[in-house]
């Protein structure tokens, strides 16, 4: 593919700033011409638009059975007895299994052993599995699942993460409801408090979110003889499933093969959770000796899968008269739900992200992970950071208002930069620190100053506002997950010059296949179309950890570059021989091997590949990458939690109808420090998609839980943004040299999400001249915040 210009995209009322010049032209990580930073067609797109991509629900095998789950519809109960006879009597039912049928360990927790695959004596949340059914038709399976009779004795539950810590609160597990407390302790709060002229205290109630991927959870388990099996799953983390299934079935890891099916969205919801349906299907397949497919229907998916953690965040922050932050105290109560899941891991990110990209001399952070009988929290894009960011950015605005400062100026005075590089964890940032640059860029695109100078009044009743959110994002896994932070790739050069690439990280829609293809093509100097990246499969590459934390492109890319480097130890000498030069002089680019500095002396990569094949040389290479080991003190939260960081700033412009409490997000301007662009279109797609998904969380997506039961488990009552709600989006991409992944690239999936809702909140508060400390900003929340200032408050007043 010939060097596509990374030109601005003329979107639907969109404009794009920055990044329009190729990074290479600006001397950044100089690379030969290639697909890097361009927008060639995604390799998976043409099959997807034609409806030819086979998701797990499109796969069927002869003799395949259909699975269903019998789950608890109450959140807290003792199980007196379980009766599966009626379920077994349903025609076409083949098997009904309970905990007694688990051959290995009846335990499915991602990190801790507190969650059974099938419950035996105690129900702790809605969705706890009582029994599994396999039948010849899906209808029979679900009818049978409903026929499983559980004699349950209700036990008082607890549904509030703060109340759960009260003396005498019902306990979810032995050992109490406080599962963990994480800390960040830096500087002396007391001495800094005396320097503060304004202090803001607040309690933020930040709601959860459902992932609402369009493809519900699904998997297919295929017995391979009697001693091993294959799982095909809609998932982000095939290696998690491999471990989970091996544990439940009591099999060696090598006997469990997991292939990732093309996956219809993940956003974290297919990180930890898919291990559960996979273990269920595997258990049924193991017992029946037949392929078993389990597909969730939407209501079940909404009702029982993990959610973004709801949090209560308490703040006491102070600044001096000039607006310089002096101290920040944060106490967060994370609603983990009934099982630990990934909550402690989510807490690690929340804990060190809650101060944002600001220089604060004294910090005291407590992050509590609390059991309740609510649906359990899990991974969700941003991983704890969006909630604490929402609180931090609200407090920054409140301090600015107290001081009579412009919120932009308040951030300018406190943002980290080349001089102030030290995070709340004591880590010193390396390389360019672009907090101010993204701040200036986003506010410039939004016309911040002009908006504030002449705010639209309008002849209508709408009120307009603008808000900023500035974010520091730790790339890759936190220190606590370092043992998982490695990746594997396999590159096979075919005799015709085409290339097979396998990586251990998955594409769930975000574009990892595209990124891996781009990076491999760039490194091998071939066209993207020559590179075929196949679906991840645990038997073809090494355990590469989870595809999370915006690490997919980075970690795949680094392993691919390592594999290509190894392949070139065999390729370059052959090319050199054909070219009549030294191996060190061989360069790859544009489909050719050339002599460095002499572009006319060239031979196609395909010719070199054919020559390698004819000489029976090893045309396959593996690649491996692991992140740099870091030090971190988990008692004080001091050290280097992440390897490197990305900055992001979003500015939202909203219109609020105060009578209806209705928030319309008109425009979001997003500036991102991306290190280096791998694929321009995919990068923009992440930013646009992240913004709209975060807008949903911030404005409409209320999870209504009543006694732990989700009472709005459908897309009529759980409202995710539609095409008619999408705001105008402006994007600025800032590239820079500094620590990063392949060619200097940093992750984008999560930084695209984290700032938006806070910027919207600040814009709504700006429009209405009040503070709202509850997310989402649904009409009832906005109307309640208006109180006596609601346009129709006089009606209520009169009726009193």
């Amino acid at each position, binding site marked *: 593919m010939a060097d596509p210009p990374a030109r601005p*995209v*003329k*979107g*639907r009322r*969109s404009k794009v700033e920055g990044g329009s010049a190729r990074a290479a032209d600006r001397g950044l990580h100089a690379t030969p011409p290639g697909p890097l930073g361009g*927008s060639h*067609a*995604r390799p*998976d*797109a*043409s*099959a*997807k*638009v*034609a*409806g*030819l*991509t*086979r*998701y797990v*629900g*499109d796969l069927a095998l002869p003799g395949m059975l259909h699975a269903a789950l019998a789950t608890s519809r109450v959140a807290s109960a003792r199980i007196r007895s379980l009766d599966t006879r009626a379920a077994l009597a349903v025609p076409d039912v083949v098997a009904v299994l309970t905990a007694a049928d688990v051959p290995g360990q009846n335990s499915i927790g991602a990190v801790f052993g507190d969650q059974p695959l099938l419950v035996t004596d105690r129900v702790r949340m809605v969705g706890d599995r009582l029994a599994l059914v396999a039948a010849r038709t899906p209808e029979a399976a679900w009818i049978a699942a409903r026929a499983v009779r559980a004699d349950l004795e209700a036990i008082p539950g607890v549904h509030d993460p703060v109340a759960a810590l009260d003396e005498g609160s019902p306990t979810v597990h032995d050992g109490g409801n406080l599962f963990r407390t994480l800390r960040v302790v830096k500087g002396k709060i007391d001495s800094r408090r005396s320097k503060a002229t304004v202090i803001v205290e607040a309690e933020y109630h930040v709601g959860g979110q459902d*992932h*609402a*991927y*369009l*493809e*519900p959870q699904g998997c297919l388990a295929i017995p391979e003889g009697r001693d091993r099996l294959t799982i095909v799953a809609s998932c982000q983390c095939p290696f998690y499933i491999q471990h989970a299934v091996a544990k439940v079935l009591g099999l060696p890891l090598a006997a469990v093969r997991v292939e990732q099916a*093309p*996956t*219809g*969205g*993940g*956003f974290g919801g297919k990180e930890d959770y898919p291990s559960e349906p996979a273990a269920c299907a595997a258990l049924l397949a193991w017992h029946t000796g037949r392929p078993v497919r389990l597909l969730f*229907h*939407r209501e079940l998916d909404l009702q029982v899968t993990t959610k973004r953690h709801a949090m209560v965040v308490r703040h006491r922050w102070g600044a001096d008269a000039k607006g310089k932050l002096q101290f920040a105290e944060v106490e967060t109560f994370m609603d983990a739900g009934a099982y630990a899941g990934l909550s402690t891991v989510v807490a690690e990110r929340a804990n060190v992200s809650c101060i944002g990209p600001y220089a604060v001399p004294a910090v005291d952070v407590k992050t509590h992970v609390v059991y309740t009988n609510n649906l359990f929290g899990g991974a969700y894009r941003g991983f704890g950071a969006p909630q604490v960011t929402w609180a931090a950015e609200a407090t920054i605005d409140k301090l600015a208002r107290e001081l009579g400062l412009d919120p932009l100026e308040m951030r300018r005075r406190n943002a980290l930069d080349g001089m102030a590089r030290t995070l709340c964890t004591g880590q010193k940032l390396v390389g360019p620190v672009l907090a101010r640059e993204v701040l200036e860029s986003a506010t410039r695109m939004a016309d911040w100053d002009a908006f504030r100078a002449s705010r639209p009044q309008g002849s209508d009743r709408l009120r307009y506002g603008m808000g900023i959110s500035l974010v520091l994002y730790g790339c890759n896994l936190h220190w606590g997950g370092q043992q998982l932070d490695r990746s594997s790739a396999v590159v096979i050069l075919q005799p015709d010059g085409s290339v097979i690439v396998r990586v251990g990280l998955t594409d*769930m*829609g*975000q*574009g990892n296949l595209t990124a891996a293809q781009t990076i491999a093509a760039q490194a091998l100097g071939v066209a993207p179309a020559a590179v075929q990246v196949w679906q991840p499969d645990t038997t073809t590459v090494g355990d590469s950890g989870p595809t999370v934390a915006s690490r997919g492109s980075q970690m795949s890319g680094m392993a691919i570059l390592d594999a290509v480097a190894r392949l070139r130890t065999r390729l370059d000498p052959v090319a050199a021989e054909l070219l009549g030069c030294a191996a060190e002089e061989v360069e790859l680019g544009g489909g050719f091997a050339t002599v460095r500095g002499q572009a006319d002396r060239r031979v196609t990569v395909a010719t070199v590949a054919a020559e390698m094949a004819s000489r029976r040389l090893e045309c396959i290479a593996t690649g491996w990458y692991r992140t740099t080991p870091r030090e971190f003190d988990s008692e004080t939260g001091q050290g280097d939690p992440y390897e490197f960081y990305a900055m992001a700033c979003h500015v939202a412009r909203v219109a609020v109808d105060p009578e209806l409490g209705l928030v319309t997000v008109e425009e979001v301007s997003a500036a991102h420090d991306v290190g280096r662009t791998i694929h321009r*279109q*995919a990068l*923009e*797609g992440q930013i*646009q*998609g*992240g*913004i*709209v*998904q975060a807008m949903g969380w911030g404005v409409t997506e209320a999870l209504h839980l009543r006694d732990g039961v989700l009472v709005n488990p*459908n*897309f*009529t009552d759980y409202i*995710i943004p*539609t*095409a*008619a*709600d*999408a705001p105008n*989006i402006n994007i600025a991409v800032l590239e820079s040299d500094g620590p990063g992944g392949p060619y200097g690239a940093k992750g984008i999936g999560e930084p695209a999400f984290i700032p938006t809702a806070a910027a919207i909140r600040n814009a709504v508060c700006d429009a209405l001249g009040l503070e709202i400390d509850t997310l989402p900003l649904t009409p009832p929340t906005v109307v309640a915040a208006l109180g006596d200032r609601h346009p129709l408050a006089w009606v209520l007043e009169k009726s009193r």
Partner: protein
Amino acid sequence: MAERVSVTFTLNGERRTFTVAAGRRLLDLLRDDAGLSGTKEGCGAGECGACTVLLDGRPVTSCLVLAASVEGRSVVTVEGLGGASGALHPFQRALVEKGGVQCGFCTPGVAVTGAAILAQGISEPGERARLLSGNLCRCTGYSKIFEALEAAREGSNG
């Protein structure tokens, strides 16, 4: 055994007859009986639009249509959008070119609705957004879907 009925209709330009249970959904007929698995089930309640097909040229959610009710009518699925040649519809090509595809699960429904919008010649952005609002997409934020719609319209005009 549930009562079975015979239904004959035009499916992607071809006259086809199926014998189905009276309560069978058009979505299941398409996916399981006709083997056209491009049409997806995202919610089963007419909310998400992943199962959108054209019924006599109008986009409908096939999870809410009884198979037996399409007797004598014309159904076009994502597989048939480009016509008998098997080529891609201009909007499908534009979705590829403009990056309007991420996970792809909503894409068949989006492609069908977009094709209907283009066929009706609707170019007013607000009206297009309203018509597309029946197709939920969780990945793209819709920006590049709109770009693709505009590109396909320009392409067909020029």
